[in-house]
């Protein structure tokens, strides 16, 4: 049981680190949000559930914490992305397409 928990926690920790690395390396807000959302959600899910497996008494509580993170983390990141687009943060120069031109008016009407 202990070893399964260690392995799952290890995978989670690696994903948490990769998420932060993505925050540091990627070029603009939206790409950073991509890395930040996906990697930290799965990373914290695995880390927390892994601790729950190592210590079976804590299992249900850790499961509730991780499900809460799984449900709320995408929502807060979605709110940040929407706010960035509406106040007119520029997309990365190499972007191929931008179909959200109608948001550009929002800032002028503010």
């Amino acid at each position: 049981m202990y070893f399964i928990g260690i392995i799952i926690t290890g995978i989670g920790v690696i994903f948490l680190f990769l998420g932060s690395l993505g925050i540091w390396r990627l070029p603009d807000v939206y790409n950073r949000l991509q890395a930040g959302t996906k990697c930290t959600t799965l990373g914290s899910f695995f880390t927390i559930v892994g601790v729950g497996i190592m210590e079976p008494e804590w299992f249900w509580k850790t499961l509730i914490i991780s499900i809460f993170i799984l449900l709320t983390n995408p929502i807060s990141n979605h709110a940040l992305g929407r706010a960035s687009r509406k106040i007119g943060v520029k997309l990365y120069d190499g972007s191929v397409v931008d179909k959200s031109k109608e948001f550009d008016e929002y800032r002028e009407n503010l």
Partner: protein
Amino acid sequence: MVKLIFLTVISGGIFLCFLRMLKGPTPSDRAVALDTLSTVTTALLVLLGYIFGRKVYLDVSLVYAVLTFVGSVAIARFLEKGV
């Protein structure tokens, strides 16, 4: 030993987020880095609770997750519409 490696790797992640928070060209970048940082901290608190053997850390972590969510949404609203 393994626990020490885990803590080191997570600290590296927190350091990178912190650098982005200091450097980020726009306010949105800083907000995104802060949000990521607080999710990482939630996981770190649970791991610390296991290492110190204290169940109380789980409650701290749960409350921290709730506050982080509300805080991020509040920052997003502030960026979007002002106070």
